[in-house]
């Protein structure tokens, strides 16, 4: 196992951000959900849900286990069709249109063990028919920016949990989609690595803003990383409350989460969660 590089060095790298390569156009990525309903047969998972998110907005989804958060994420990403209602992502309503506008990062990193770190991160480019050499060059720029320089050729098994998650995030980012759907991206990490990764992701989104929908169990993570947090009820999911997260989210994580204002919002989020619990 290799150690993660220390955070301050990476924070400096974000300051010297380079422009996104030409093949990653930034498209408008607003998200609108109207009267959404979804069910698996008899089982209703989501009922008349409305949601709005502006381009480059970062929205957290928290709620009790099994409330349909992941289903909602898959619906947004175009991996499933809603039973009723409408989802519009960057002007696209159809599932295939939404799929073209969203990149999905699953809970486990799911790096392909037969590909090197850089080839894993460049999968979207290869799928678009870009040659291996060109895809590696493009991904290589991001490896330097995101504190992964030197690990391009490493096999996934040689990387630490935090680094694997970074490669998985880069893979999502390199797809160049305006909307990122992140399903509990740091749930499998230990507490210290998770805190590091949260600060890392906040920095990454500062230099490379995208519309983000983040599903998480961790209210603190949601409030630190997102501009707003939607608290969902138990199944069938509806929005109990939408809270604005206190600014600034890009600062030091330890300071941010101990700020009295942050703690106050966290408590109201907890109350909303209990209210929506079964």
């Amino acid at each position: 196992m290799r150690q993660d590089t220390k955070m301050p060095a990476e924070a400096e790298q974000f300051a010297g951000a380079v422009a996104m390569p030409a093949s990653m156009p930034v498209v408008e990525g607003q998200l609108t959900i109207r009267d959404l309903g979804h069910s698996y047969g008899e089982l209703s998972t989501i009922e008349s849900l409305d949601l709005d998110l502006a381009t480059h907005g970062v929205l957290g989804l928290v709620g009790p286990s099994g409330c349909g958060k992941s289903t909602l994420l898959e619906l947004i990403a175009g991996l499933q069709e809603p039973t009723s209602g409408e989802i519009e992502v960057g002007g696209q309503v159809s599932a295939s249109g939404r799929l073209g506008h969203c990149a999905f990062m699953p809970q486990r990193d799911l790096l392909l063990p037969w590909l090197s770190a850089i080839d894993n991160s460049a999968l979207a480019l290869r799928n678009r028919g870009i040659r291996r050499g060109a895809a590696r060059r493009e991904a290589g720029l991001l490896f330097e920016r995101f504190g992964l320089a030197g690990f391009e050729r490493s096999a996934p098994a040689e990387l630490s949990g935090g680094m694997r998650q970074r490669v998985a995030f880069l893979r999502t980012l390199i797809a160049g989609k305006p909307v990122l759907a992140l399903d509990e991206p740091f749930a499998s990490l230990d507490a210290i690595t998770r805190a590091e990764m949260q600060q890392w992701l906040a920095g990454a989104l500062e230099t490379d803003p995208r519309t983000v929908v983040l599903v998480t169990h961790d209210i603190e993570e949601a409030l630190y990383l997102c501009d707003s947090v939607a608290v969902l009820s138990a199944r069938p999911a509806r929005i109990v409350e939408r809270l604005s997260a206190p600014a600034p989210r890009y600062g030091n994580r330890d300071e941010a989460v101990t700020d009295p204002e942050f703690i106050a919002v966290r408590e109201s989020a907890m109350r909303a969660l209990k209210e929506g619990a079964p």
Partner: protein
Amino acid sequence: MRRWLLPMLLLAGLIGAWQLAAGTGALADLLNLESFLVPSPAEIAEALWQSRSLLADNAWITLEEVLIGFGCALVAGVGFAIAMHLSETLRLAFQPLIIASQTIPIVVIAPILVVWLGFGIGPTLAIIALICFFPITVNTLDGLRSVDPEATKMMRTLDASRGQILRRVEAPSALPYFFSGAKIAVAVAVIGAVFGELAAPDSGLGALIFRDMNQLETARAFAAVAVLSAMAIVLFAILALAERRIVTWR
């Protein structure tokens, strides 16, 4: 070191015990047989050496049959596995037939194949291909279906087409399964070759064994069996080596 030493020691021990039992005539007395029917390892080795060119000629023919039959099963098995993986309809339609193909009693069908395909290499190839097809197809299909559905979803949001998901995710995942199937297949292919050659005793190690047993050339028949086993072990080892070179991530 232990990898090689342990099987070698065991083999040497078994051969030594057999030599003692057969060489002294004790085993033949015990079985109430003439001693030429119970050849000792030394006699088999002698037959192996004296008939080396006859054995080699027939071994080449059998090897050729095994390689062609196995190759046909490989192409057909992988092709069927991919087709059945991509199409639910094909999978449901073919699964019972593929299992049924494995239940065909080869010994019974071999003479019929000789009637259909005539003497020569044809029936033997058909039998080898038939028994190799099952383990390759079933294992490769299992491998293709072993992929985490989350990985497929992830690839879809990264703009992967069905073919790209197959090539970049499913095919590599299936490789270790495929090699397991191929290793089983190559070992049974040798048995298939013998069955084929017994039904149409023209040439090959199986035909030689058949003739030698009839002519009470027991030592040479055993020598042919030894060559056959060596062939299976070498083919298995080649596949195991290929697996290690290709599936480096396990």
